[in-house]
């Protein structure tokens, strides 16, 4: 599918806000394309099915999270049509979650490679992935306090742990 077809298909099937960015580069000014799609949480799994129709194995890159105050925004970055010269597009899927209800379906059953990213968002932001079996810490230490999320901009941010590197060093050397 080319960019136009993808955009048409998305607007036909979903209540979605689609933005396309095309950026030229080099001397020949060949363009690279990024597509940003904002959808409702209810349509999330349906959109994943659509993604698998574009390419048999859509490449999952990463989930990024942005704290918008009331809401938490997850942006799933996928790339489709890789392996074809200059044809690849990044497709970023935006889902807004209310902080009272930070839940979304896991995609690890469809794309096992999303495991680390879901575990990361789970521990850094506190989003619960429904169906994610492995919810152990991956980047944070095992004894990390519960309910503290370092990538949030609200009261759950671990303020009291900030700038404590010096104390950590001093600990146990008998000079406190």
């Amino acid at each position, binding site marked *: 599918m080319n960019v136009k077809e993808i955009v048409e298909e998305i607007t036909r099937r979903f209540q979605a806000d689609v933005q396309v960015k095309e950026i030229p580069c080099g001397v020949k000014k*060949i363009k690279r394309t990024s597509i940003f799609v904002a959808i409702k949480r209810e349509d999330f799994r349906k959109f994943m099915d659509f993604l698998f129709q574009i390419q048999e194995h859509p490449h999952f890159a990463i989930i990024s999270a942005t704290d918008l105050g009331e809401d938490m925004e997850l942006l799933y*970055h996928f790339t489709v049509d890789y392996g*074809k010269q200059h044809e690849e597009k990044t497709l970023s899927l935006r889902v807004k979650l209310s902080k009272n209800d930070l839940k979304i379906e896991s995609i690890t059953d469809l794309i096992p490679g999303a495991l680390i990213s879901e575990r990361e968002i789970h521990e850094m932001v506190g989003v619960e992935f429904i169906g994610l079996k492995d919810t152990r810490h991956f980047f944070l230490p095992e004894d990390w306090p519960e309910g503290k999320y370092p990538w949030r901009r609200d009261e759950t941010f671990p303020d009291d742990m900030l700038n404590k590197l010096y104390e950590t060093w001093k600990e146990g050397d008998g000079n406190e």
Partner: protein
Amino acid sequence: MSEHAYSIPIGPLHPAIHEPITLKIDVEGEKIVGVDVFCSQVHRGIEWLGMNRNNPIQSIYLSERVCGICNICHPLCMVQAVEDASGIYPPERADYIRTIMAELERIHSHLLWAGVAAHEIGFDTVFHYTWALREKVMDLIEYLTGNRVTKAIMMIGGVRRDITEEGKKKIKEGMQFYLEKFAKIEDIYLNDPTIKMRTRDVGILSKEDALKLCAVGPVARASAVPKDVRQDFPYAAYADYGVKAITPDMYNGEVHGDVFDRIIVRLLEVKQSVEIINWAVDNLPKGPILAEKNLVKLKMLLKKAEGEGIGRVEAPRGEDIHYVRLEKGKEPYLSWKIRAPTYNNVLPWIPMLLGGQIADVPIVAASTDPCMSCLNRVTVVDEKGRKYEITKEYMHELSVKKTRRLMRNAH
């Protein structure tokens, strides 16, 4: 896990990977029957600093410190994302200089990797020889940027240093050097029977697994997934050149998806990089190297900008992606996410290691060219709770012994 299995935690500091990661390996005798991976030892909160402390220009130099080897691709990736978000695009000449710098980095990184791989299987002569060759490109990088490691050449909307006529001549000389030496490197790595014995059909990653686990870079390409950001997604000057992703079947018409294939892919990529650099030097367009020379003005522009952008770069280890979101009136990013290639290449270790031997762990782990840093201790806990430790040196010794054993048996 059967009752005969032992669980071996490798790490948090290194099993041949010179960086902190924990592997928990279940073994039955010599055979690996279960693998689990943990990170978490050195999360430095770089993204957090970019989101809370730094202005975007400071973040360029912070992103260089994400990795000591990939210190062109991370800042390149980040500035592309910021350019995308703010609409400050680099001039053509800057695109070409970026390409040259990124390819020089690929040459040095792949040679560094090839040396480490040789060391892991006990070929220290080859290791020293490869690293001696690598010095040429390091000198070239130092000449062009002023530094061997943190090069500080990227800037939002361009690059900070131009390439002079004399610089072009030096680059050409350097590339000529590598073209002359390439046949010898190829002969050492690809025709040596012992390297082949240790790496052929070891650490296999099937195409299916590579696709499902979203492997990137040489690891994916060695499993016949023709995925290369330089080929697929136009950035810098690569679209003008028309890069082709290298898969092992280009070399000998077959794909195994093993460690040997990863060696083939990386070596051929060194040659490809030399060709790209020569082409870029010949076709370097004239013009400015920065969209906005005045840093204070640039900083104000970035402060006023609002939007989001994605930067993608083919780092030596695979696809690198940065997401940046700018908020009007604030200098630090509203959101910044870095996804380095190893992030995606850690899960494929599991199918690669399953069914292998402990002595293969170093070379298989090293074959993905992981970018984290140092095990010096492995604790083995047996079922009765007895503990004993395997040092990195011991594991290296096991690996070297296996090579010697195979060599003896071959004669």
